[in-house]
């Protein structure tokens, strides 16, 4: 059997975001990186890999997106698939999920798909459940811990009111949160070994998909950078001046009245 891990190439959060004229992210502007939240997914997929199994990292994106698969290979994935097609520029989540589901099918013997809880740039977090529905599989989302036993996957999920244990039959899609364990950085040996692992580049037609429909959908009409806050008033604390400034601010907004 095979574990597929879906990975996304995103702008480096440390770089300023640059939007091109068509309001899409200018992906050529910075080097880009594997989405930080997908590192957790790769780490869990590699950890869950059972004997004689392989982990296949799949990404959809422009040419540079291959770097996300490269990083996944360095972190221990065995193979990679890069789905790249001109027709996919600006794809929405539904198209993305359809492409990833088709890539999972193309792997043949996958019974588990691991995703990050959301991408660090778009951030909707719904791709995993859409992939699951398109495959007709179970989806167990937002796992803080994942275990496989027999034909089932068990996850721990932190809800506001309780920590729940959920069980779903395989095949299944799970998404893991950033509380699932700190991913380990690749070793130099792993970085060099990753260069020998196979990466398959495919277009839509190889996955048996047509050009995504351009039915009237969502259209981003404007994008503006958030205004920075005006420079702060800085108080260097001495002899209670810090607390005084804090309480003065709260009192000025009538927020010290409570509990009297």
């Amino acid at each position, binding site marked *: 059997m095979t574990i597929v891990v879906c990975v996304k190439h995103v*702008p480096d*959060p440390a770089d300023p*975001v640059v939007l091109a004229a068509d309001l899409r992210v200018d992906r050529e502007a910075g080097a880009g990186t594997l989405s930080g939240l997908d590192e957790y997914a790769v780490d869990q997929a590699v950890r869950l890999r059972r004997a004689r199994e392989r982990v296949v990292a799949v990404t959809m994106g422009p040419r540079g997106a291959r770097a996300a698969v490269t990083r996944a290979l360095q972190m221990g994935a065995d193979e990679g698939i890069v789905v790249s097609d001109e027709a996919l520029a600006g794809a*929405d*989540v539904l198209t993305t999920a359809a492409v990833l589901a088709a890539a999972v099918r193309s792997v043949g013997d996958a019974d588990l798909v691991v995703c990050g809880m*959301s991408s*660090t*740039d778009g951030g909707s*977090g719904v791709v995993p*459940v*859409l992939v699951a529905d398109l495959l*007709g599989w*179970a*989806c167990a*989302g*937002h796992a*803080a811990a994942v275990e496989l036993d027999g034909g089932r996957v*068990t996850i721990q999920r932190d*809800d*506001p*009111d*309780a920590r*729940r*244990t*959920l069980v*779903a039959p395989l095949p*299944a899609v799970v998404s893991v949160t950033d*509380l699932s364990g700190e991913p380990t950085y690749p070793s130099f040996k792993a970085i060099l070994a990753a260069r020998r692992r196979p990466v398959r580049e495919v277009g839509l037609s190889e996955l048996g998909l047509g050009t995504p429909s351009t039915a*009237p*959908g*969502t259209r981003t*009409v404007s*994008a*503006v*950078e*958030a205004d*920075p*806050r*005006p*420079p*702060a*008033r*800085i*108080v*260097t*604390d*001495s002899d*209670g001046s*810090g*607390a*005084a*400034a*804090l*309480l003065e*601010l*709260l009192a000025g*907004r009538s*927020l010290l009245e*409570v*509990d009297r």
Partner: protein
Amino acid sequence: MIAVLLDQLDSTAEADLILVRLAAAVDEVTCLLGSAPDRDRVAALGAAGASHLAWADLAPDGPSGPWVAALAALVGPDDAVLAPSTRAGNEVAARLALRLGRPLSVGADSIAVGGPGLVVTSTAFTATWHLTTELPKASVVTAVSAGVQVPPPTPRTPGVRRLELDLTPAPHEPVVVAAAPKAAGAGPRLTEAAVVVSGGRGTDGDFSLIEEFAGLIGAAVGSSRVAVDQGWASPERQVGQTGVSVAPEVYIAAGISGAVQHLAGMVAAKQVVAINTDPDAPIFRACDLGIVGDLHTVLADAVAAVRKAQPVHC
């Protein structure tokens, strides 16, 4: 009509009312509830602008499939759908959009009639950008509730009906086999509090002053991810990109450096106060009042001053 998804596991009654008021400004509102509403609930939802209430026996901690099926039965070809932008709400919304072949927009912070049907605004890239998006009316939209502006509603007297549907989950849907409840905790909810006091690595594991100060002024306690990773705060306290987003009147960040992922969860706060020993900490470039100092000293002083000013309870 606009159908509104309520009663999600990770939403709150207050957030549900905000969602209804957001929707009522767009169109006539039908709410989907997970259980029969009592009279008070009917009145509250009516006061928020709901015209119709539809309910079915749907467990908040059950699988999302039955919720999706119930919503699908509720909406006609021209109706919009609004769900809370929480993990559970987004999941139901996405599955519904796929099932009905509708456009999807996640995480709106405003929604209005306009363009081809609806115009929504949202933030992207860890809240560093504001986007405006147009969609057809018959779309599925999820919206945040913290800090959104809601117009005053026109009160309604909603009709209540039960959805007659087979809502048995598909056999492959995940099932909850165990739940360890969390202590409710004193004080206001993190997402609804007027003041949030958050601690980070700078607390060095000691949240006692943060809790004491928050308790005194009726604030909620939040944290950075480092504090959660270290086990000093429980996961639902985490503010930020992978935690909750808050929009209080005042956000107090104590011993938090101001990483972009943390800022993403509190940029909507009206006033931000930072307490940090490092005058070069990035949080000082993202606050209104910056206190350069040791959080333990500053908070101890603040606690003492508030206690002194408080009338003695007899």
